[in-house]
């Protein structure tokens, strides 16, 4: 229920708006008076964790955000990197965890809708989507329904928009039982001299509202995403936003059409906290004030009041600032596309954000009070108690466990997921889902972008610093396997309750690990998002920094694959490793998933490996490249056999050699006659020839398995589980 406009501000109201007593005292202090109820609502969203980053901001400052290619770093709707020849890539990843848990289909769908808007707001035409998903145990009663609903929601939105979903990840752990994660990523292409920003320009400029009408959707969504779930949170359901990808497709085309001209001064999507945060952020960046006539806002429902209009999270809406005199251009374009369009206010020179309702002022807050004065916390941190070491694993038959490892939910085939995504629309997808990274060309050029998202909560939990650094390395390695050089990273920091010192410690250490690895591998962090309070009834998720990395490959479309053909020589590149089992899928299978330390990263070795892989692929010297990650060497070999061609390999027999998850390694396969050229290009990268492909069994260390059995174990596990019950 929306409280009446003239209710007095009680402690209870303050608490319902998610502000602590200290924060309310701060509000009174910076505002210099008691807020109206409308203003309290505005503060509640602007000072929420979601909008203000109050717990994370001081840490994010440690990330490297600059580089020769960076045109726009964090701070705008999405970051932008230069690709040369007038092209730039604009990308960002964002979470929609809480909404997706409450209403899987709509939550995931509107997550995709939101990230698309962040990208086309900048003037970029979206060219690829990715999704990074985390679910609870397979046997948890909610998991199946969440998987079905969330995948359908992502498909429903992305497919309708006609943007290919080219990569992603789907992983499981008991810590996500009550808190699934849905992180969506979008990348678009923008001419490097025509990037649009969310700003206001000079006083007197006109503020336009375009897109769908405003309803009562998601009121208080931003506040909801910043509070822990608990008993009874299902009751918060009616705030769910419903996405309309059809409207968004029209909005995309209309915005890009208007951007062809010169009418736009600034443009900003309405995401979380809708009209409030979009207008305040624009005013903040422009260093101006803003006047909004709320009665002019296009409305979808009757009887809406200022409080609701300001806090609604209705989807598919944008704010546009234009110079006076250009109004007709805006009307023409948006009316052509049958979208709502209304002039709702103007830019002012007094630095105050004001709203009126039929001529009466209902809110007047200095912009700086909403943005710069938002609380910032350096929350206490404490290292958690040390974890037990990984005990000696007793396993009489490590090789015999291959089928079980392949059927592990983190490793098994996820075609069921990505077949529901149109991954080819746009006719540019060169490497599809299922490979180490996707590769999408830019029509009319030799440029191709590589896309990967990777995160490994198991490793990060064991050591947030090393685990996160390892993920950065792995992302870059995946890109190298399709020939691409990293140009930037976007991240989604999914963590538990930051008011717990152990969680805050995990967060800070994870940021530092990311920062170190990004510096070492020269990958700037250009955008990202933080999602805290991923806890249910006090149980937090594994710390999960979702990483999405973008790489550039220039040249004729590469032909490298991730599957063997017959008659190829196979080599393992990189330091052989020590057979690092702590944190591995194998160790988890044996019941030891919270033991030991994750594998360390050697940046120099990683970098040398990536350089070599890229050279091999650019030269067309290798037929196959595949990085080693979850499941280690044996799983990587098995995955290469999935087209039905096996081989005999000398790759050890002990569990560490077979399943160790040491970093810095990749498999390649080449025609034997190319061996000399390959070795020359590899230079000093350690190389060990493992054997030759052919036949229909996979043999390692004297043991064999039919490649048909490999394919069955890997391919059937996930669909069989899904078919296990109807919901």
């Amino acid at each position, binding site marked *: 229920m929306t409280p009446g406009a003239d209710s007095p501000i009680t402690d209870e109201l303050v608490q319902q708006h998610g502000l602590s007593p200290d924060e309310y005292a701060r509000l009174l202090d910076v505002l210099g008076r008691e807020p109206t109820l409308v203003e309290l609502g505005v503060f509640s969203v602007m000072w929420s964790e979601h909008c203000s980053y109050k717990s994370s901001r001081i840490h994010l400052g440690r990330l490297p955000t600059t580089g020769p290619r960076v045109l726009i770093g964090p701070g705008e709707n999405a970051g932008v990197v230069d690709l040369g020849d007038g092209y730039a890539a604009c990308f960002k990843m964002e979470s929609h965890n809480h909404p997706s848990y*409450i*209403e899987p289909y709509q939550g995931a769908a509107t997550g995709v809708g939101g990230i698309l808007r962040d990208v086309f707001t900048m003037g970029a035409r979206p060219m690829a989507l990715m999704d990074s998903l985390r679910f609870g145990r397979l046997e948890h009663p909610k998991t199946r329904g969440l998987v079905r609903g969330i995948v359908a929601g992502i498909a429903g939105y992305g497919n309708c928009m006609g943007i290919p979903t080219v990569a992603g990840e789907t992983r499981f752990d008991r810590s996500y039982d009550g808190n699934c994660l849905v992180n969506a990523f979008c990348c678009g292409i923008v001419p490097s001299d025509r990037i649009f920003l969310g700003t206001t320009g000079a006083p007197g400029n006109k503020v336009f509202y375009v897109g769908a009408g405003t309803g009562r*959707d998601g009121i208080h969504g931003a506040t909801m995403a910043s509070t822990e779930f608990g008993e009874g949170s299902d009751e918060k359901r009616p705030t*769910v936003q419903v996405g309309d990808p059809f409207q968004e497709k029209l909005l995309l085309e209309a915005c890009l059409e208007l951007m062809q001209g010169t009418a736009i001064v600034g443009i900003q999507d309405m995401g979380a906290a809708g009209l409030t945060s979009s207008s305040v952020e624009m005013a903040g960046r422009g260093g101006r004030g803003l006047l909004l006539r709320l009665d002019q806002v296009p409305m*979808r*429902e009757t009887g809406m009041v200022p409080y609701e209009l300001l806090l609604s999270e*209705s989807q598919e809406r944008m704010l546009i600032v234009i110079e006076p005199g250009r109004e007709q251009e805006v009307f023409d374009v948006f009316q052509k596309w049958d979208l709502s369009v209304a002039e709702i206010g103007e830019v002012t020179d007094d630095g105050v954000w004001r709203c009126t309702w039929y001529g009466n002022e209902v809110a007047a807050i200095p912009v700086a009070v909403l943005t710069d004065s938002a609380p910032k916390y350096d929350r206490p941190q404490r290292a958690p108690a040390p974890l037990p070491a990984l005990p000696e694993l007793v396993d009489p038959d490590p090789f015999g466990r291959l089928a079980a490892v392949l059927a592990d939910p983190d490793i098994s085939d996820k075609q069921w997921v990505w077949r529901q995504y149109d991954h080819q629309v746009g006719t540019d997808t060169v490497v599809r889902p299922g490979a180490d990274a996707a590769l999408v060309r830019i029509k009319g050029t030799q440029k191709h972008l590589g896309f990967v998202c990777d995160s490994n909560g198991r490793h990060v939990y064991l050591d947030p610093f090393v685990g996160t650094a390892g993920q950065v390395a792995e992302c870059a390695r995946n890109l190298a396997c399709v020939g691409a050089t990293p140009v930037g990273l976007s991240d989604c920091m999914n963590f538990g309750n930051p008011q717990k010192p152990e969680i805050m410690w995990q967060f800070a250490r994870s940021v530092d690990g990311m920062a170190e690895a990004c510096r070492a591998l020269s990958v700037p962090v250009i955008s990202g998002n933080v999602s805290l309070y991923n806890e249910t009834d006090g149980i937090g998720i594994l710390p999960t920094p979702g990483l999405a990395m973008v790489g550039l490959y220039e040249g004729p479309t590469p032909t490298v694959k991730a599957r063997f053909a017959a008659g190829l020589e196979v080599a393992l590149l990189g330091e052989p490793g020590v057979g690092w089992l702590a944190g591995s899928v194998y160790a988890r299978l044996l019941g030891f998933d919270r033991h030991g330390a994750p594998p360390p990263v050697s940046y120099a070795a990683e970098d040398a490996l990536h350089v070599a892989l890229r050279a091999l692929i650019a030269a067309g010297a290798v037929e196959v490249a595949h990085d080693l990650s979850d499941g280690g060497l044996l799983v990587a070999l098995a995955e290469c056999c999935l087209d039905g061609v096996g081989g005999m390999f000398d790759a050890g027999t002990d569990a560490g050699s077979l399943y160790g998850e040491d970093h810095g390694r990749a498999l390649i396969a080449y025609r034997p006659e190319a061996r000399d050229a390959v070795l020359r290009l590899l230079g000093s990268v350690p190389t060990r020839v493992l054997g030759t492909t052919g036949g229909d069994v996979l043999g390692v260390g004297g043991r064999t398995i039919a490649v048909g059995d490999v394919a069955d174990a890997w391919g059937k596990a996930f669909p069989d589980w899904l078919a296990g019950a109807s919901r």
Partner: protein
Amino acid sequence: MRARVYVTLKPGVHDPAGKAVQGGLVSMGYDEVRGVRIGKFFEMELADGESDPRARVEEMCRKLLANTVIESFRVELL
């Protein structure tokens, strides 16, 4: 015995499909159409023998047929 279940969006929940249909009808010349909301409608064939079939069907609605986050339902037994 037979049951009919009507599932409709709760008031206030956005109905993009309904809006598209309304727009379509108006552009076809049916200007009198002020609003359209689209729901689902299930016709079920039930074996006899349950002591409280209405309660059973309502349970099915809550568990599967309706998404009670955004939809409400109505059951008719014939």
